[in-house]
């Protein structure tokens, strides 16, 4: 049994609202860069950057960070596929908005903070997630949340974006087991 959490229209409005919240919190658009976490955060980061550009009236750079080498469970599961990190701008002194699709244990966000550290020292890092599904294992919280969804550990949150060949929905799926 799958249930629809966000349909296409609501997903678009949710991302737009998140962009406005980011702009409200960060008055100076020139400082802001948006960085998507591989792989679920990449397209969301681009969408947020495009929205922010409209709000600020100036370009907002979007980047990508891969956290595979900074995970804390590398010897407990099959080695993850490495993906590119693309940060074609200076992080020093910037306000980084880190973007992921789903916030769960918080371990990916922690790894992302470590990975960013290799590239410079942002003046602040904020976390934006489309879905916060709970079950945190680390003291990490999101600054901007699209939707809070109470879940059980056996469920899966599936974010399907058009850029990835999907249909712009978020669904909650029961495990097949």
């Amino acid at each position: 049994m799958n249930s629809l959490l966000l349909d296409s229209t609501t997903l678009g409005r949710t991302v737009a609202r998140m962009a406005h919240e980011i702009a409200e919190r960060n008055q100076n658009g020139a400082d802001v860069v948006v960085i998507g976490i591989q792989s679920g955060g990449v397209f969301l980061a681009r969408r947020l950057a495009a929205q922010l550009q409209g709000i600020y009236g100036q370009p907002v750079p979007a980047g990508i960070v891969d956290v595979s080498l900074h995970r804390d469970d590398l010897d407990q599961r099959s080695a993850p596929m490495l993906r590119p990190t693309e940060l074609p701008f200076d992080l020093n002194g910037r306000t980084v908005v880190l973007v992921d699709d789903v916030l769960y244990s918080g371990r990916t966000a922690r790894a992302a903070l470590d990975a960013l550290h290799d590239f410079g020292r942002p003046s602040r890092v904020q976390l934006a997630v489309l879905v916060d599904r709970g079950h945190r294992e680390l003291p990490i919280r999101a600054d901007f949340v699209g939707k809070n969804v109470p879940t059980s550990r056996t469920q899966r949150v599936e974010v399907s974006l058009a850029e990835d060949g999907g249909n712009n929905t978020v669904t909650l799926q029961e495990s097949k087991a």
Partner: protein
Amino acid sequence: MKWNRRHLLDLQALSAEELTLILDTARHFKSLGERPKKKFPALLGKTVVNLFVEPSTRTRISFELAAVRLSADVINFTAEASSLKKGETLKDTVRNLEALQADFVILRHSASGAPHFLSRFAKAHVVNAGDGAHEHPTQGLLDTFTIREKKGSLAGLKVTILGDILYSRVARSNIWALVRLGAKVTLCGPPTLVPRQLESLDPNIRVTWDLEEALRDADVVNILRIQHERQRVTMFPSVGEYAALFGLNPTRMRWVKPNALIMHPGPINRGVEIESDIADGNQSVILEQVTNGLAVRMAVLFLLNGGRSSEVAGT
């Protein structure tokens, strides 16, 4: 594709998918090596032992740097200054290293099959860094990586391996990776070092003793070092005669396609199997092979470090 092997013992056993996963992973590590900050915490807290029972400089340094770049602690253990000299068995040596919580043993050994032997009882990950005349998997991988990077794909490519094939673990590892990924391999050299029976390994392997024929349509020419140390009997009259008959010199370079890659695993015997002008020429990718070796070894350590494919939930 999930990686499920604990050890890297040879390339003969690897599927095309496994080889491709290593090469793809290595491609990322190569680009990471171009960052100002080149060190990553993937193997933080792990111990890598370089157990080199047979001497080697470049492979050991490459593995050491690969491990250090991934934040592992590295112990170098060479036969000359070790308990092996005092008569300790290889098995006891490794048991002792494991008692010190070694997580990886990188083994270079003169006996073919030594890493396979270790893998039967070792708790640590075993990586074959060259065993006798059997295999040198990471060299085969870095050669394949270099070819794929330069030529785009291995499929249908004609690769000539020239020189001492019989005693060459480099040749054997190259052969397995190349044919698995769809290349056609030509083996060339003196008949004593390139027996016709090598063709029985795979339908895509061809043996020729005619140098011009081997060079003429090759997309890649991989030149092997003459391994004086591994030949129990003399397989050719003299080094001078080998150079005269099979050395790659400017005259013979005219047989080689202008876009063919010239490769050599090193160390080079300049003036024997290859002349200096060619080793340093614009078709040579010999130093890029060294750079790529680091990326490939990082990929191997990273993949082997992964746990078995027990799914761990969580993002």
